[in-house]
């Protein structure tokens, strides 16, 4: 076919603006397809271009090699690829396109003798193949349009698979960050909540855990790795497991915190990444607890006498500076109490459109109104209702989902004889 000569085709990337009907007339056509013909044989190229010109909705450029094609690929939605090019033989070209421009549909052009190669090209990622000399305009148009549609469908499918993989990965990390606590003490009720921030895909580094020791001590922790994303979440899992391991090994709480700090310093992926922690160890008699705060908001105590913050000295969070002392504070709880350990995501939601945030004051006043009836008598909701009410109120005030992730661990104790 090399006997066919065509002056128009001598330049690479020819756009047929010099032909009648090309250019502006094409621009008005709906859903134009931009096709790049990669064909080194001028004769074959002429025939193929003439066929393409029969179809008004297709705009053609030509390249003689993959090298020539490279700068032209940006605006192309379909490539017609000859399998015998100066810089690419057989399926190499298909693989190169798959690797470098996976969004572009590829239709392979084969000779009658190597039709099997066409089928192999499809297995390598091409959308379709055509046998040279057995093509007319309408067939070519149909094949190109089908290839483009199929490539788009494949891309959508791929995005869906990636989203599903992300969701599975998030679920795995979530299980690592947020275990289901088991408590044997019948006087205690545990409730937990976690909400990812900024849309459902944005997992953060918030975590919680709870361990009831054989001697009756109950250790609870809520932590928050600053920032958000899978790396922060994975670090949160590390810290929670370090905490759990040390607690189960029966280590004193100062040693537990020192180990969490060491874990953070050694496992973090970025400088100055820090994690805040609130840790509470409830005594076996359940009337009081030891509280450790490391850069973390204090927990709330809800008792028959009201709602208050459990005040304790705050040490610097692991990661900001290397702490060697972890002061503990004894806090009185009483005979009947609910304690909420939470991360700042719960109180950093906005109030309306300004920059004002809910804050712990807003959280406390919300709980106060939820736990007292209009006549001032106690109308204590269940701890599950309390958490749901708290989170939905924060979201309502924020005018939608909260930006940061949030974790809440609630412990509810009723020591009265039933």
């Amino acid at each position: 076919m090399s006997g066919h000569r065509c002056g128009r085709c001598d330049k690479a990337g020819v756009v047929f603006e010099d032909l009648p009907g090309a250019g502006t007339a094409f621009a008005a056509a709906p859903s134009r397809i931009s096709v790049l013909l990669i064909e080194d044989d001028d004769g074959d190229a002429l025939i193929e271009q003439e066929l393409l010109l029969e179809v008004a909705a297709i705009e053609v450029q030509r390249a003689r090699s993959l090298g020539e094609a490279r700068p032209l690929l940006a605006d192309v939605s379909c490539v017609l690829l000859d399998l015998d090019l100066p810089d690419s033989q057989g399926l190499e070209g298909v693989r190169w396109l798959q690797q470098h421009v996976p969004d572009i549909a590829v239709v392979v052009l084969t000779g009658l003798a190597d039709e099997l190669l066409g089928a192999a090209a499809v297995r390598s990622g091409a959308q379709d193949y055509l046998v040279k000399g057995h093509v007319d305009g309408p067939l070519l148009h149909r094949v190109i349009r089908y290839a483009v549609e199929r490539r788009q469908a494949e891309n959508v499918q791929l995005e869906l698979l990636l989203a599903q993989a992300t969701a599975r990965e998030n679920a795995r990390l979530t299980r690592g960050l947020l275990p289901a606590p088991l408590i044997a003490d019948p006087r205690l009720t545990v409730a937990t909540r976690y909400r990812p921030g900024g849309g459902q895909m944005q997992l953060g580094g918030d975590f919680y855990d709870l361990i009831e020791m054989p001697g009756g001590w109950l250790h609870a922790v809520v932590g928050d790795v600053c920032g958000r994303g899978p790396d922060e979440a994975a670090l949160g899992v590390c810290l929670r497991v370090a905490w759990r391991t040390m607690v189960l090994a029966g280590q004193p709480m100062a040693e537990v915190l020192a180990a969490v700090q060491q874990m953070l310093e050694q496992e973090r992926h970025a400088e100055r990444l820090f994690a805040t922690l609130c840790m509470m160890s409830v005594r076996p008699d359940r009337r009081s607890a030891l509280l450790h705060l490391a850069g973390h908001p204090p927990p709330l105590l809800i008792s028959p006498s009201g709602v208050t913050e459990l005040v304790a000295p705050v040490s610097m969070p692991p990661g900001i500076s290397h702490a060697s002392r972890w002061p503990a504070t004894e806090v009185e709880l009483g005979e009947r109490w609910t304690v909420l350990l939470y991360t700042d995501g719960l109180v950093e939601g906005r109030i309306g459109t300004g920059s004002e945030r809910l804050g712990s004051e807003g959280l406390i006043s919300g709980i106060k109104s939820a736990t007292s009836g209009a006549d001032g008598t106690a109308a204590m909701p269940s701890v599950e209702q309390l958490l749901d009410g708290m989170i939905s109120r924060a979201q309502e005030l924020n005018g939608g989902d909260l930006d940061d992730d949030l974790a809440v661990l609630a412990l509810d104790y009723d020591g009265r004889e039933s």
Partner: protein
Amino acid sequence: MRGHEPVAGTAVVKLPTEVDIGNADHVGEQLRAAAAPGVMVVVADLTTTKFCDSAGVRQLALAHDKVADSGAQLRLAVAEGGSVDRILALIGLEQLVPQYPTVEAALAAPPERAP
């Protein structure tokens, strides 16, 4: 908001009303860039900042390191008793980065005051 008189060897970086995960990296870059040759003191002006989340705190700590690497000192100007003051106090950032109630106080403090 009136500007501050330029003081030789100092740079004042006005921080936005809110510093959070969305703009914290940018704020950190601005603070690091302010430690140009000849600058001994960089003041992060948080006096009109109403909110700073943990990502923002981390960038302040990072900026402290980078500014120190450049041979200068980072200082924070934070309105006393405000919401940012409370957030920074909770994390204890003042133990790392010196904090002053106004930009003027931050600029006037003697050099290399130990945090």
